[in-house]
Every structure is written in C-alpha cells, then in structure tokens.
C-alpha cells in the first residue's frame, strides 16, 4: 500500500507541477467568467427583431400585425420590392428581414408570402414571424365573419403556465432552463474529463513502456499497483483542477456580479419582463404554499449570479456528479491503460481506442436525445443510467431532473462492479502488455493475455 501511495504521489506531482496545468487552471475560470459576462452583456442588449413589411396585397396587414417581445414590424421603404430589398439592408436601426406579401395574397389564399434576408433566417425567428402572421390572418378572418373586436379579444386565450415540481420542498416552481442547462453542462464535463484524462492515462502508460522503465518498476511493484497508482494519481489531478476551477470561478463571478447587475439594469425590456415573471412566480408560489399550509417564503430579491441554482437539488447533483465522474473515469481509464500497455507506440493505439470511445460518445449523444429532449424518467433513460458504460454520463444528465434514491444507489452499485470488472480485465492485459515489445497485437491476442498465468 505504501508503494501505491508513492506512485500516486509521483503521478500527481509531476502533472501538477507542469506549466500547462497551471495555465489550464487559471485560464478556464477566466474563460468561464468571460463568457458569463459576455452572454449577460449580449442578452442584456438583445432587442426584438425588426422586420420590414412590404404589403402589396392591399389587405392593410401591417396595421394588424401586432409587434411582440420578439418581433417588431415596421413598414418597408421604397416603391418596389427591389427598392425595399436594398432599403431594408441599409436601414438604421438594423432590420433583420423583409416580409413580403404578394399582390395575390388574400385571407383565403395565403400562399406566396416571402421572408427575405441576408443569409439564413433562424428557425426560431421564422416561427415567431409565422405565428404573428397566423394570428393576424386569424383575427382578420374572425372580424370578416362579423365578430366584433371585444369578442375576438375574449376568444384569444392568452394562457400562462408554470410547471411545479412536486418532488421539491414546498413544491417549488420548476426551473426548466436551469435544469436543462445543468444537465448539459455536467454531462459534457463528465464526457470531456473522462476522455481527456483517460487519454492521459493511456499516454502515461505508453510513455513508461517506450522509455523501457517498466522492467525496473515491475521488479519493485506489482503491475496492478503501477496501473492503479497512475489512474488514481491522475484522478487526484482532475479533482485538484475541479477544486481550483470552482474556487476561481466563484471568486471571479462574485467579483463580476456587480457588472452583471449593471447590465441587467441597462436593458429595460428584459428587466421589466423578468420583473413581471418574478412577481407572478412569487404570487403563485405564495398561493401554492398557502394551500399546502407551509410557511410562505419571503420573496428574496438578490442579484447573486448563482440564482439559477435555486430549485435544483444541488447537494445531490454535486455528490452524484463527483461519484459518477470518478466511477466513469475509473471504468474508462483502466481500459485506456490497457490500450497503452498493449501497443508499442501511440499510432497503433487508434484501432483499440475506437471500441472504448464509442460507448462514451454514444452515451453522450443518445442521452441528450433521450433525457434532455425526451423523458428524463422514461424506460430508456432508466436503462442508460444503469448500464455502467453509459451511466456516468446518463445519470449525471438525469440528476438535475431529480432521480429516485433507489435508482441512484442501484446505478452506483452497478458502476462500482463495472469498474472493478474493467479494472480486472485491464490489469490482466496490462501486466502482459507492458513487457511485450515488437509484437503487433490484435483482439485475439489480447483475449489470450487475459488468461495467462502468473
């Protein structure tokens, strides 16, 4: 045990002392803080799209097209479509697109509408504009059929809906944005770090092999100790990096918080909108709390950048993230270690990396579709978060949505047995591979190594 500790120390210290480690540790939080501030600035200044409208149909559509938070409609300048096209491009303030209603357009023949823009118009923008036109045409049709404006206004339902998560204490309002965001960020962190540091393990092993120090090492320590020492040493590096990042990001974001608050205040439409939302939320929450006879929460108004964490099971997420990351890392890095041991140089490693990276990549892609875009508690999501090869990513992705305790524990137990199994297999391959030089290995050879004696 002393020896494995020495190996862990060496692996850890040689990596932490590297300049690249220091640079990564400092740069990443700066980048994170930078992007956070950047996004805040950008979203603060984002205004409704301006769409110029050229109506040749004579239906007075522009008057009826109601501008919303997202789109504002203005009349196009110029006497022809061609002139309008050039005019909207040079317009100030900037106009994003030109909406054209052809002369053939009537309420019953709505074909031929065109949206002209430089480059592609995003789907979201198109759908906003389409919605506005639909609503206008609908209203016009209704008024043509003899309904008066008040009736029409009454007919147009303007529904607002809040999703309330009952698993949360006091039935907090469900913050889908934060949940989804957390699911994305955490799972991509797991994916990236397993990959980056798994490959580091592999490179470390193949460097040891190609520098021919293996025989000296193995006359002092067991191959298993050498392999686990490296894997755990690198794991310690990852956690150090995490700790540094969290500390630095927290420090930087706290420093940057006043800046964020400023930029929010500078953008009245968004601030107003969110103000309304908050008020509604508070009222609803109060109403809900009243019905469930819990003490109403004091409406807190804070400008902390960590507000988005409200409503998430933070402790479970952090604990789960650390556990599943470590488990996944141990599972995959032992396989990477076996690859490093089996091949003579790193170009040969490619063919063996493929089957190891495929489950990793697939579990990320499939999980996004199944969990974030689908049902986070559905049967497929369940199985993905149970199989040890996919669970590190899938379970971490499910965590922000709330996972029943028994599933967490079952998945954790399966992951532990999973990495014990891969580590065992890997160590069998490793111990033969590290002393095998000048031999092209294939899968059959590898499977034979597993059953070598001694």
């Amino acid at each position, binding site marked *: 045990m002393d020896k494995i500790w020495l190996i862990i120390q060496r692996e850890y210290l040689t990596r932490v002392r590297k300049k690249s480690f220091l640079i990564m540790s400092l740069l990443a939080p700066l980048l994170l803080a930078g992007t956070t501030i950047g996004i805040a600035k950008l979203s603060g200044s984002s205004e409704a799209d301006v769409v110029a409208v050229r109506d040749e149909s004579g239906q007075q559509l522009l008057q009826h097209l109601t501008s919303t938070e997202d789109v504002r409609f203005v009349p196009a300048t110029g006497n022809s479509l061609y002139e309008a096209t050039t005019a909207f491009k040079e317009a100030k303030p900037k106009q994003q697109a030109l909406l054209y209603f052809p002369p053939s357009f009537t309420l019953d023949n709505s074909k031929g509408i065109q949206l002209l823009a430089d480059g592609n118009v995003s789907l979201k923008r198109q759908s906003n504009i389409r919605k506005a036109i639909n609503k206008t045409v609908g209203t016009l049709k209704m008024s043509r059929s003899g309904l008066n404006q008040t009736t029409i206004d009454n007919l147009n339902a303007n529904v607002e809906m809040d999703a309330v998560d009952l698993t949360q204490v006091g039935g907090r309002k469900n913050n889908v944005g934060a949940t989804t965001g957390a699911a994305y960020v955490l799972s991509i962190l797991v994916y990236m770090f397993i990959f980056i540091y798994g490959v580091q393990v592999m490179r470390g092993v193949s460097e040891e092999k190609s520098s021919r120090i293996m025989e000296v090492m193995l006359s002092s320590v067991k191959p298993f100790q050498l392999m686990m020492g490296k894997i755990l040493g690198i794991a310690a590096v990852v956690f150090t990096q995490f700790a540094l990042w969290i500390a630095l990001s927290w420090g930087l974001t706290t420093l940057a918080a006043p800046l964020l608050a400023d930029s929010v205040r500078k953008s009245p439409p968004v601030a107003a909108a969110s103000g309304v939302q908050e008020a509604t939320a508070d009222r609803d929450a109060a109403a809900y709390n009243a019905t469930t006879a819990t003490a109403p929460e004091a409406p807190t108004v804070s400008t902390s950048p960590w507000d988005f964490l409200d409503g998430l099971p933070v402790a479970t997420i952090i604990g789960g993230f650390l556990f599943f990351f470590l488990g996944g890392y141990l599972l995959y890095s032992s396989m990477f270690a076996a690859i490093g041991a089996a091949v003579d140089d790193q170009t040969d490693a490619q063919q063996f990396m493929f089957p190891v990276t495929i489950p990793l990549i697939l579990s990320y892609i499939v999980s996004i579709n199944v969990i974030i875009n689908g049902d986070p508690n559905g049967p497929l999501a369940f199985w993905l978060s149970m199989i040890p090869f996919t669970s590190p990513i899938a379970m971490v992705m499910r965590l922000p949505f709330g996972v029943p305790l028994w599933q967490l524990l079952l998945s954790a137990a399966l992951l532990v047995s999973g990495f014990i199994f891969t580590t065992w297999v890997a160590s069998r391959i490793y111990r033969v591979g590290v002393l095998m030089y000048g031999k092209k290995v294939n899968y059959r050879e590898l499977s034979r190594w597993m059953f070598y004696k*001694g």
Partner: protein
Amino acid sequence: MQPILQAIDVHKAYAAHTALSGVSLDIPERSIFGLLGPNGAGKTSLIRIITQITAADSGEIRVRGEKLNPRHIGQIGYLPEERGLYKKMKVGEQLLYLAQLRGLSKADATQRIKGWIDRLELKPWVNKNVEDLSKGMQQKVQFIATVLHEPSIIILDEPFSGFDPINANLIKDEILELRERGATIIFSTHRMESVEELCDNIALINRSHKVLDGSVRDIKDTFKTQTYVVEGRGRLMVTHPDFEVLEHKERENGHFYDRIKLHAGTTPNDLLRYLIHNVEVHAFREQIPSINDIFIRRVQETMPESLVETTPA
C-alpha cells in the same frame, strides 16, 4: 554453505514456446555468477522469475532457503537489459523515487544517493532531467538505482552494453567492490571476456535447458583436451604411441610450433621428458579452452539441427 539463491526445477512456458524447462541452479553467497546463453535461451525469463516480475509455472526459487516472496524485493537489485528512466524527471528525484519503491526510507535514500552521486561524479547532473543526460550518464544513474538499497543479490543483465571503456571499468570496479562488501552478483551476458574476468561460477542455458554449470575453474578443467603447445628447435617425431601432433608449423632456422594432444594415460611430464631428450624446448604450455570456446561448443552440441536461434527473447 547454503546457497543464497536456489532455483529448483523451474519450468516456464509461454503460448508459443517453452522458456525454461527444469532449470535448477545453486548460486553461492558472495560470488559473481555468470548466467550465459545465446539470445532467446531463457536467461531473461529466469531473471524475471527471480525478480518476481513473472511467476514460474512450476518449481520454485529460494532465497537463503526461504521460498521467494514479496519481502525479498528489497533484497534484490535488478538492472535490466532494456534500460529506461522517466525522461522528464530529475536525476535526484528519480533515484529517490526508485529507492523508496524498494522500501528505503526517505532520509536513508537521500543520504545514500548523495554518497553515490559523489562517487560516480554525477553531482552537476542531480537537478537535470534525465533526458538531458548522455547515454553513459543515464547508465550510471541506472546502476545507482540498482544498488542504492544495498541488495544482497544484484542482477545485472548485460551491464556493460552502452558503456565506454572508461565507464565500463568504473562499473566493473564497483561490482567487485560490492562483492567485497558481501553482495552476490548475477551476471547475465553473452560477452565472454567479461565472464572470464569476473565470474566465479557460471551456468549455461540453451534452448530453455541448463546445459552446464559449475565454477569457472572446474568447467575449464573438464573441457581441457590434454592439448599442449610446444615451441622449440629441432626435429620432432610425427608419430608416437603416447601422443598425437595436431598441428605442426615449421619456422625459420629449424624452429617449430606444435600442438600436441596426449593420449590417455600420458602425463604432461612424460611429454616433456620426451621433448627434452629430442629437441630444444623454448616454450611449453597447456592449451586451456576459453569460456567462449566452451560456450560455442556446448551450444553447438545441444543444437544439432541449426546454429541459429530464431526464437525471440
């Protein structure tokens, strides 16, 4: 005296070939033991079993009568033929690390490293990365790493390869010095001149079998062919019932050089008596086979069908 290291009927087979079949060895304490054999004979396999890198399929290794176990790791020092160090690690740190892995305490290791560094003139290199050192320097560092924990058994696999003559001599002196201080040295090589110079005992392994072992002197005695070299002046009888002239060379002024093999029952003194009566003797010496000759002879004897060994190590 109990041998410090014993191999008893050791077998080891890999998927494709047999590396060792029934090899038994006794290695006496405080000796320099030469483990000889052509490439692929099984030397490295045997060493890897002794150093506990692999295990034997059957048979056992005993250290001072005790079955080999992990506690022995600290008593064995091993310099493999394939040498390497961590390239990006400083010389001092590397030595400390390797010594600690062999069970030395940090304080002990630091002190001993200092001693060895001074001895082998590596002082200016202590804080350099290994990759900045010349190959010879790296070899010295490796040698230090092998003996730092003062093992009682030191295994050196081709220790002189890669050393220039000056450093090779330095290492040779260190090896002799280590034996003086009580270490047993196992020497795996196919460089015969160093064997004759250093080894007290040898074992010859060929194609997974031990084909010969014993003290260098005994082996040489066994392989003596009762052949004597005679130089002198005069005329020597070519046929004689007691001996046979294997080679005869005439030199100027009636000088000659002969190699003479004695028949069974004839002593060198008989030959000498005959010579003294018949010719003027300038030189008379026994032709002693070199270890190299013995090595080649035994290998060829045990390898009738081909002289070239192709099985990889």
